[in-house]
C-alpha cells in the first residue's frame, strides 16, 4: 500500500471521524456473537520482522476514540452508596436524576445506575456525588490503550540493554510461573479458534461508508511467542462478557509480549519476565469490537471490575497500559486500592498526551495516592523523554516506550503481535475492505507509554519472585534504585528516573 495514503488513512480513521455505526447497538447481537465455530484453526502465520514499516504515532486518547466523540457512555452512570444506606433512601436519591439501579455486576463494589440516554451523565453524576450518602458518583468514561504499533529480534530490542536487563536476568532469569501478571487491555492472542461475528456497516465522517459484511468467520491463533495454553490463567472478557478475551487489535498482545514473551528459545524477541503466567483481562474495546457490536465499552466501571477480577483470581501484578483524560475516576481508584490491599502491584501508563494538551491521565493520576501503584513515563532510545509522554506530578518512573521521531521505526519497542495489514483492513478503503484475521503475526515496533508500562510490570514480577512481596516495598525499591534522569531528584518528566532492575534485584549488602 502507498505509505502516504496509509498514513493519511490511519489519521482519518483514528481521528475519531471514523467510525460512525450505521445502526445503533443491537442488544441481541451480543447474545449470538461471537459464536465459537471451532477451537482449532490453521497454525499461526509468522510474517517476520517489520522494520521497514513507517513510524506511526503513539495512540492518544483523542485518536483512539473512534466511534463516539464523547468521552463517556450515555444512559448510565457509576454510583457507590455509603454502606448501610437504606434502599428507600437510595431510590429517593436516584429519583433526583430519574435513574434506577441495574442488576448487580460481579467484581463491582458499585452500582450502575440507568438514566435517561438524553440526559447529561456528568451532570447527573455531579448531582448524586453531592449527596451525603454517596461515596462517589461518576460518568462511565471510556478508556483507551496508550500506545501505537510499528514493527521486530533481540538485537533490535534496545530497550533491554537500556535498563541493564541482561545483568538483571543473571540474578533472576524471568521470574517463575508462580507469579501471575494480569494484562488489562484489549485482550491477548492467547488461543486459537474460529469465531463468527456480525460486522455492521460503519462510516467515516466526511469520508466513505464501509458496508456491512454480515456474519463473518474470523480465525484466531495464539501468538506463537507467548507460549502454550499453560501460560494463561483465568482469561476474562469484560467487553463481550465471556471468558474469551480475544485481542481484536494487537495492543494487548504486544504489551503481553514485553511482559512475558518467551525468551532464550532461539525465536523472535525477548520479554521481561518470561516465566510468569499471564492473565488476559479484556477491559477496553477497539475498532473491531465496536464494528462487531460488543455489548460493553471500555469504561471506568468495566476497568474497575477487571481490576477486581484480576486480583480475586490470583494476579500479583496488574498492567494497565490504558487510560483516558477528563475528570477523576474514583471507581478506578477504589478498585486499585482494593488490588493493592490484596497484595497486588499496579502499573499504569502515564499517558501519551504531552503534544495534545498534556491533560492529566486517569488512572495514572492515582499512582501518587497509592503505595503499590506506579505511573510510568516513556523514554526513547536516547534515554530522553519520548516527545508524546505526558508529564506531571503523577509520573513516578520512566521506562523504554520508544520514540520514532528520534531514530525512526526501530526506535520503537519490538514485540510480536498481529500483522497489521490483516487487522486494519479498513485502511484499504471500502472497495478492498474485508473481514480481519487474527492469526497472522509479525514483529512490530510500537511506541507509547503503553510500551513503557509492561517493562515495569515485568520488573515487578521479577521483584516478587525475588522475595519482595509487599506492593509498597516494590514501589519503594523501584524508586530507590531508579537511575535519575532530567533535573536532579524527582521531576515531572521522569519521576524518580529510569527503572534499574539489576540494581534493585541485587538490593542491599551490609556495607555496599
Amino acid at each position, binding site marked *: 500500500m502507498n505509505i502516504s495514503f496509509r498514513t493519511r488513512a490511519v489519521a482519518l480513521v483514528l481521528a475519531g471521524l471514523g467510525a460512525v455505526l450505521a445502526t445503533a447497538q443491537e442488544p441481541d447481537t451480543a447474545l449470538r456473537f461471537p459464536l465459537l465455530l471451532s477451537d482449532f484453526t490453521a497454525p499461526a502465520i509468522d510474517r517476520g520482522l517489520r522494520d521497514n514499516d513507517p513510524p506511526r504515532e503513539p495512540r492518544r486518547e483523542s485518536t483512539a476514540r473512534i466511534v463516539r466523540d464523547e468521552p463517556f457512555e450515555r444512559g448510565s452512570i457509576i454510583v457507590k452508596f455509603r454502606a448501610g444506606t437504606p434502599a428507600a433512601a437510595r431510590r429517593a436519591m436516584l429519583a433526583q436524576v430519574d435513574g434506577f439501579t441495574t442488576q448487580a455486576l460481579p467484581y463491582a463494589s458499585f452500582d450502575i445506575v440507568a438514566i435517561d440516554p438524553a440526559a447529561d451523565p456528568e451532570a447527573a453524576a455531579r448531582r448524586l456525588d453531592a449527596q451525603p450518602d454517596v461515596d462517589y458518583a461518576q460518568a462511565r468514561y471510556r478508556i483507551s490503550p496508550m500506545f501505537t504499533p510499528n514493527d521486530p529480534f533481540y538485537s533490535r530490542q534496545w530497550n533491554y540493554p537500556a535498563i541493564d536487563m541482561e*545483568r538483571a536476568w*543473571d*540474578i533472576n532469569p524471568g521470574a517463575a510461573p508462580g507469579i501471575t501478571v494480569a494484562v488489562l487491555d484489549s485482550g491477548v492472542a492467547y488461543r486459537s479458534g474460529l469465531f463468527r461475528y456480525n460486522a455492521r456497516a460503519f462510516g467515516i465522517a466526511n469520508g466513505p461508508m464501509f458496508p456491512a459484511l454480515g456474519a463473518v468467520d474470523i480465525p484466531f491463533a495464539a501468538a506463537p511467542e507467548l507460549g502454550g495454553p499453560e501460560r494463561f490463567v483465568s482469561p476474562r472478557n469484560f467487553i463481550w462478557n465471556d471468558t474469551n478475551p480475544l485481542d481484536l487489535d494487537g495492543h494487548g498482545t504486544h504489551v503481553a509480549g514485553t511482559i512475558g514473551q518467551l525468551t532464550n528459545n532461539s525465536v523472535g524477541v525477548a520479554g521481561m519476565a518470561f516465566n510468569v503466567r499471564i492473565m488476559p483481562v479484556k477491559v477496553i474495546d477497539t475498532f473491531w469490537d465496536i464494528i462487531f457490536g460488543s455489548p460493553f465499552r471500555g469504561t471506568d466501571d468495566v476497568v474497575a471490575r477487571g481490576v477486581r477480577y484480576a486480583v480475586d483470581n490470583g494476579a500479583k501484578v496488574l498492567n494497565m497500559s490504558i487510560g483516558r483524560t477528563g475528570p477523576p475516576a474514583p471507581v478506578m481508584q477504589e478498585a486499585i486500592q482494593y488490588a493493592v490491599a490484596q497484595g497486588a502491584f499496579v502499573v499504569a501508563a502515564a499517558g501519551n498526551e504531552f503534544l495534545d494538551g498534556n491533560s492529566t491521565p486517569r488512572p495514572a493520576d492515582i499512582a501518587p495516592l497509592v503505595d503499590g501503584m506506579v505511573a510510568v513515563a516513556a523514554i526513547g532510545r536516547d534515554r530522553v523523554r519520548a516527545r508524546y509522554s505526558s508529564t506531571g506530578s503523577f509520573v513516578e518512573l520512566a521506562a523504554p516506550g520508544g520514540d520514532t521521531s528520534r531514530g525512526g521505526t526501530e526506535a520503537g519497542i519490538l514485540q510480536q503481535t498481529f500483522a497489521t495489514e490483516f487487522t486494519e483492513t479498513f485502511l484499504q478503503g471500502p472497495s478492498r475492505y474485508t473481514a480481519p484475521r487474527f492469526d497472522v503475526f509479525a514483529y512490530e515496533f510500537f511506541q507509547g507509554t503503553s510500551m513503557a508500562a509492561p517493562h515495569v510490570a515485568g520488573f515487578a514480577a521479577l521483584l516478587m519472585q*525475588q*522475595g*519482595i*512481596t*509487599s506492593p*509498597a*516495598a516494590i514501589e*519503594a*525499591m523501584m524508586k530507590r534504585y531508579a537511575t535519575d534522569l532530567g533535573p536532579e531528584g524527582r521531576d515531572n518528566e521522569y519521576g524518580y528516573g529510569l527503572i534499574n532492575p539489576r*540494581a*534493585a*534485584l*541485587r*538490593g*542491599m*549488602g*551490609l*556495607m*555496599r
Partner: protein
Amino acid sequence: MSGCSTPCDGPRRHGDTEKIRSCLRASVTPWLVGVAVAAIFSAFARPASAQGRDIGFRGFADVGSTTFAATQSFEAILGSATGVVFGGGGEVVLPKNIFVNVRASRFRKSGERVFVSGGERFGLGIPTTVTVTPLELTGGYRLERGWPVVPYGGGGIGRHQYEEVSDFAETSENVDVSFTGYHVLGGAEFRVSRWLAAAGEVQWATVPDALGDDENGVSQMFNESDLGGLTFRVKVVIGR
C-alpha cells in the same frame, strides 16, 4: 574534644544519641590506648632490680563470640549480630607484669542481600559473605598476686580488614577495605600447668566510621557506622 569534630558539634537533637556515643568512644579510646602504652614504657624505665619477673614469651589461640555494634545491619544481612570468632597470636610478658600481645582473628558469616522498607526486611536470596579480620596490638597489666587466677586488663589499637562478597557482583561491587579501631579488654587467666594456661576474656572494640557510607548498604539506612563490638572469648595459652 579531639576526634569529635563537625558531625558531632552543633545542636544535638533527640535521636542523636548514637552519634554522641560514637563521639565518646572515638575520644575516650585514644586515652585508654595512651594509658596502656605509658604503662609499658614506665615498666621499662624501672631499674631491673625492681622488676618482678623475667621476660616471657607465649602463644595463644582463642575462640569467642562477637556481637557487633552495628546490630541492625548485621541482623539484616546475616540474620544475627553475633557470631563466632577464631583468633590467635603471640604475647610478651615483661617485667612488672606488663604484657604486650599481637592477635589476629577472623569473623566470617554468610547471609543474603536484602531490601528494607517500612521497617520490614525482605531477603533477596543472593548469598553474601562478610569477613572481618582484625589485627590488634594490645598492651596491659597482669595483676599477679600469687593467686591461682591472674586478672589482667589492657587496651590497644587494631587494623580491621572488612570483606563483603556477594553473588552476581562485579569486582568493584564487592568490598575489601580496612579501618583503624581501638579496644579495651579484661580477663582472668588460670594456669593449668607450667607451660599451659587458660583464660576468659572480654573485649570491647570500636571501629568508627567504617560502615554507612554507601547507599547500597543497610548500614546507611540504619545509620550504623561502627564495625566494632563486644567479644567474649576463651584462650589457651602456651608458655610461661
